[in-house]
């Protein structure tokens, strides 16, 4: 039967009945797994995704309950801390993605164009990951939470438990740095290389 309770209600219920927290796992397992996989790769995701939920369970008493909101940003925050501990793996993973990933451009009709777009995309990705590696790790995680997970600035502030103004200023600087490093790419056709994105 469908559980209509909000995440906040489930977490509140789990304070008295720990097994209730299993609902949080069921709702967000896939997203958390993909989050870790996107940062560190499949093997690391298999090791760390469950750990995110264990830590979340231990910290549920400090979860700031806001009715009607998803606890996913909170879980991303815990996952981000784990990812930052593995920051060397993150750099390796980005490099591996650049070397081995296959790109599936959208809107490319024939094989030759597909191949050309793929080559372009791999080159672009190499530049993107190189640019990411020049940004300090906390700002980089903020950028990725916005760009890859679709979080708002306020949600990013909640993830890191820092003021919204701090997020704004850090992201402003990080985006300016990224813009400078990616400047030659900005002129590329908008859809020349869009990676297949599973959500």
């Amino acid at each position, binding site marked *: 039967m469908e559980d209509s309770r909000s995440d906040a209600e489930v977490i509140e219920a789990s304070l008295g*009945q*720990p*097994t209730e*927290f*299993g609902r949080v*796992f*069921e709702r967000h*397992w*896939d997203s958390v*797994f*993909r989050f870790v*996989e*996107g940062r560190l790769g*499949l093997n690391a*995701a*298999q090791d760390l*995704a*469950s750990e995110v*939920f*264990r*830590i979340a*369970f*231990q*910290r549920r*008493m*400090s979860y700031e309950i806001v009715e009607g909101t998803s606890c996913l940003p909170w879980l991303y925050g815990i996952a981000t*801390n*784990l990812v930052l*501990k593995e*920051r*060397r793996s993150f750099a390796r*993973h*980005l490099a591996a*993605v650049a070397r081995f*990933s296959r790109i599936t451009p959208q809107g490319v009709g024939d094989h030759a164009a597909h191949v050309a777009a793929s080559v372009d995309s791999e080159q*672009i*990705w190499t530049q*993107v990951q190189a640019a*990411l590696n020049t940004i300090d790790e906390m700002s980089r995680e903020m*950028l*990725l939470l*916005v*760009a*890859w997970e679709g979080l708002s600035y306020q949600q990013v502030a909640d993830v890191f*438990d820092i003021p919204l103004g701090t997020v704004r200023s850090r992201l402003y600087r990080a*985006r300016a740095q*990224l*813009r400078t490093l*990616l400047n030659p*790419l*900005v002129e590329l056709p*908008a859809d020349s*290389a*869009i*990676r*297949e*994105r*599973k959500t």
Partner: protein
Amino acid sequence: MTDEMSILAKYQPWTSGPNPEFTEHAKRNFSEFLKQQDTAASLRPVKIRARGRSRLLVVALLAVALLAAGGVAIGIIGDSVGYVGPVTPITETDGLSLVVQESNIGPCLEVRKADDTMSGGCGVDLSEPLNIGVGSIDQTAFANGWAPPTTARVEMTFANGEAITVTEFQSIDDYDVLFFVIPLPAPLTEPSLPVQAAAYDDQGTTLASVAYDDVRDRAPQQDE
């Protein structure tokens, strides 16, 4: 989204996601973990939020409950973890006693109150130069741990920005570290994590530092 963010958004690494078999496996494990928490909660004689290794803590709590009930020294308890030596008091402050007691898996460092409620963990590695634990008993939050023998002060900073400085330490025979326990002020009734800490000597030189993301993860982070 501006151009640089659009580019970044397009270049999200592809993820396969968890396969169904692994998801089932993970779900089953997590469900088992939650059931254990449920059982542990029902064993607890009082509300305790603990630091240290949770599995071992439950065993230690059970030991206290059994000691209180039977008044008999316990050797091996539960899954082969138990006290094997006498309790050595280290220091006491504001009704909180810091004690160390040997177990079959190594020293147990525990904070106790007069009514036998306690928080602690066994098998602690006293070769670590600096170690911080946080917990609470009956709404009294505290930090405890140990620091290098030449420590003059330990500074801790919690996630909410609260900073605590420890200047009183105790040494005891057989352990080449300085122990401490300190009650945390009211805003920290629920200890706020992560916590960062550093030990300094009387010249202000940093002797050791640690950062814990989670109280269950007590290994010092390695700087790269």
